[in-house]
């Protein structure tokens, strides 16, 4: 009980309260700018806050984390350029709303839903952290592999047009992810013996190119047209709207917490999975998905903010990072003389409750900064395109360079930008490419780990799968979704029959 009182540390100490606020404010803008990432900001803060006490340093980082995960949705809605990977799904229904002049409404829903998701994530962290982390530890390499396959099956719902083009795009993404020195065997893969290819292709460079540069090039077609005036009078969604989507947001938040808590998967995958889930369970959306469906905003935004609380679960209970940001925070705790690990909860339970408290405060600040300052953002979007497009391109270049201080990432980014431009024109979906890149390592590494563990024997592999309830459930889910939910066979059949019909006529 005494330790629980640390929950209120942030609320009672004005300095810490301020730090969380400053962090969240900065985070929203860092998240919104495509070239700046939360990971980058937090790792710089390690040096910056080196001489500080541990509490304000962590308070600032938590603010940036919470704000940053949310901030990615801003540019996704207003510019069709996700500011962070976890906002890719948000652009799909957010931008169509902005085109109708309803950006204010979209931002409002996004903010409230992010707040809701964030809160569920924190709640699970606070009450069930040890339970969830035990569950997360149970995932064996084969389970991660099935999870990756489940993720890849999302291609079905991400490719609205031609499914076959979606499959091509997904496979391309998986191939891009395997370029470079294989981290498990140090074998060069798909490098054509070129030195600059050995370091691989940065996933952020692909994302910035495909979504940022190709969008900017596409908008060049409309450079002379006036910007769309955004109505920003009605921002806060009605209680009815929130209540209507409460059920969905609970489900997608659960997806977010679990995916966030698993080491090696984070908010980006969670958001895409949640979008897919929303598409499956929403039978009659008021507006179709892809044209501004509220459900298409609710799902990814609840999930990615719920994943924040989720990512802290293995970090606080086991000292295992749930994602890239918590990995850096673990380093920060070390530098400040703490030893993150299974003993942290026992030796320093006050730290746990302090972090939970800081997350709650950050979540409220996110709500505050999310619902205010929208005017500034819409002003940026209403800038003439002749200035906005060069600005986006310059940010894309700086941002892709900043990921790994590498000039070759800039070339990749531009290359994929031009390639993505053509893909858009010819009806290839871009989401599956990014999905493929994100999942490539998860699938490839864990497939090899799983099969090596079973001595290269597929028989032994399946015996292993069926002797574990978790693996069996995951495999069943893969088969179920593949056969029934994804309209793969149905589509193929209808395509085949229509091809036949055409050839007959």
């Amino acid at each position, binding site marked *: 009980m005494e330790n629980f009182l640390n929950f209120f540390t942030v609320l009672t100490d004005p300095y810490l309260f301020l730090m969380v606020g400053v962090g969240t404010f900065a985070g929203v803008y860092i998240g919104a700018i495509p070239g700046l990432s939360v990971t980058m900001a937090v790792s710089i803060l390690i*040096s910056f806050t080196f001489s500080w006490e541990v509490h304000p340093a962590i308070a600032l980082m938590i603010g940036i984390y919470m704000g940053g995960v949310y901030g990615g949705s801003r540019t996704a809605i207003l510019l069709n350029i996700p500011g962070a990977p976890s906002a890719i799904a948000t652009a799909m229904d957010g931008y169509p709303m902005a085109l109708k002049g309803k950006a204010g409404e979209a931002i409002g829903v996004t903010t409230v839903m992010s707040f809701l998701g964030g809160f569920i994530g924190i709640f699970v962290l606070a009450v069930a952290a040890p339970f969830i982390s035990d569950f997360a*530890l149970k995932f064996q*390499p084969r389970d991660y592999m099935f999870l990756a396959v489940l993720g890849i099956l999302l291609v079905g719902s991400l490719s609205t047009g031609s499914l076959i083009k979606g499959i091509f795009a997904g496979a391309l993404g998986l191939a891009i992810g395997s370029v470079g020195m294989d981290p498990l065997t140090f074998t060069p893969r798909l490098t054509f013996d070129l030195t600059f290819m*050995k370091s691989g292709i940065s996933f952020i460079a692909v994302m910035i190119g495909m979504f940022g540069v190709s969008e900017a090039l596409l908008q060049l077609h409309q450079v002379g047209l006036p910007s769309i005036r955004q109505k920003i009078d009605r921002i806060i969604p009605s209680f009815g709207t929130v209540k209507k989507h409460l059920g969905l947001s609970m489900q997608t938040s659960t997806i977010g917490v679990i995916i966030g808590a698993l080491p090696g998967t984070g908010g980006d995958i969670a958001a895409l999975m949640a979008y897919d889930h929303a598409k499956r369970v929403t039978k009659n959306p008021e507006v179709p998905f892809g044209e501004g469906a509220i459900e298409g905003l609710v799902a990814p935004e609840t999930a990615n903010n719920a994943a924040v609380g989720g990512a802290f679960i293995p970090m606080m209970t*086991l000292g295992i990072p749930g994602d*890239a940001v918590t990995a850096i925070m673990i380093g920060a705790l*070390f530098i400040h003389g703490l030893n993150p*690990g*299974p003993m942290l909860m026992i030796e320093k339970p006050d730290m746990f409750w302090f972090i939970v408290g800081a997350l709650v405060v950050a979540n409220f600040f996110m709500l505050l900064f999310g619902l205010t300052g929208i005017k500034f953002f819409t002003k940026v979007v209403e800038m003439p395109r002749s200035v906005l497009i060069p600005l986006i391109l310059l940010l894309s270049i700086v941002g892709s360079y900043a990921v790994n201080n590498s000039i070759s990432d800039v070339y990749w980014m531009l290359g994929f930008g031009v390639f993505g431009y053509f893909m858009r024109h010819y009806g290839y979906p871009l989401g599956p490419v990014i999905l493929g890149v994100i999942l490539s390592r998860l699938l490839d590494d864990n497939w090899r*780990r799983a099969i090596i563990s079973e001595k290269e024997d597929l028989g032994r592999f399946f015996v292993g799968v069926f002797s574990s309830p978790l693996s069996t459930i995951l495999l069943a889910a893969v088969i179920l979704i593949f056969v029934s939910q994804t309209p793969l066979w149905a589509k193929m059949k209808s395509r085949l029959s229509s091809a036949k019909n055409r050839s007959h006529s």
Partner: protein
Amino acid sequence: MKRIVLGAVAALTMATGAMAEGYPTKEIQGIIQWGAGGSTDTVMRSVTPHAEAVLGGTVVMQNMTGGVGAIALNYVADAEADGYTVLMGAENPLLYKVMGLGEKDYSDFIPVSILARGTAILVANVDAPFDDYAGMIAYINENPGELKLGATGPGGLPSVITAMMNTVEGELDVIAVPFDGDGPALTALQGGAIDVMPAVLGAAIEGIKAGNMKPLAVFDLEANQHLPEVPTIVSFNEGYADFLPWGPFFGVFVKQGTPDDVVASLQAAYHEGAQHEDFVALMDGRGFTLMNISGDEAQSFLTAWQQNTAWLLQDAGLTQASPEDFGIARPAE
């Protein structure tokens, strides 16, 4: 004795430190070989602010990952040898040549400071059917090809420890399951995906203390002060004494050809920085052995480390090219 030598070196570097006039006139780039949040990153980000204070300049640290650190190494090697680009790395580059990962290693650099050395430890899943190293060897002999041993790719700490075990005990019939770092491997160990993992002490210590994993043996000549009850590997088999002490290390380097006075300034700065009580406490807490050596002492440490490890891997058949091809002599018996 060692202390006196250290003191003398320190006095010498302190005396010459004042010579580099006007250095630094601009900020220094510190290129960290590994990603944010890793142990190299943590060590460098915690020692550098203390060194900055001595140096009276700013070191801007950047993480540059990829190619097992070779990208960062080549970046610094391609920069001017003016002391404004500093490499912050770990032990891996010493194996690049024999592992076919690159043509350059620390022989193209001057060590500013070898900061600290880690100790390896063998840990097992809590449910493993053995409690110490001898039990593990017995289990492997009774159940050939069943024990899952964690690995992190050729040249990593687990591969070196495994090579040592194969050299001392004869070829062990185990399944080596590869991971992309000891963090993920230790997570998998706790989940039961692997049975045994050779890891650096600092990464495993919290898990051991909490009873989430079982220590089998410390790879050192003497018991570790943080885990005094864990037996040393030499207490099970004397044969390991030839290879120990061995461990990964962290160091700061500048390109060969950097002016002597600049090197001296940096050496003095890092030497004093590494003595700061916060840094000493941090290293101790993570189970690292503080070294803080530079100059000839550091050079001979690097040479010996490279000879021992490269030939160990060569004899275990894990190298791409013989150490001989690069003029790495077999260590004197």
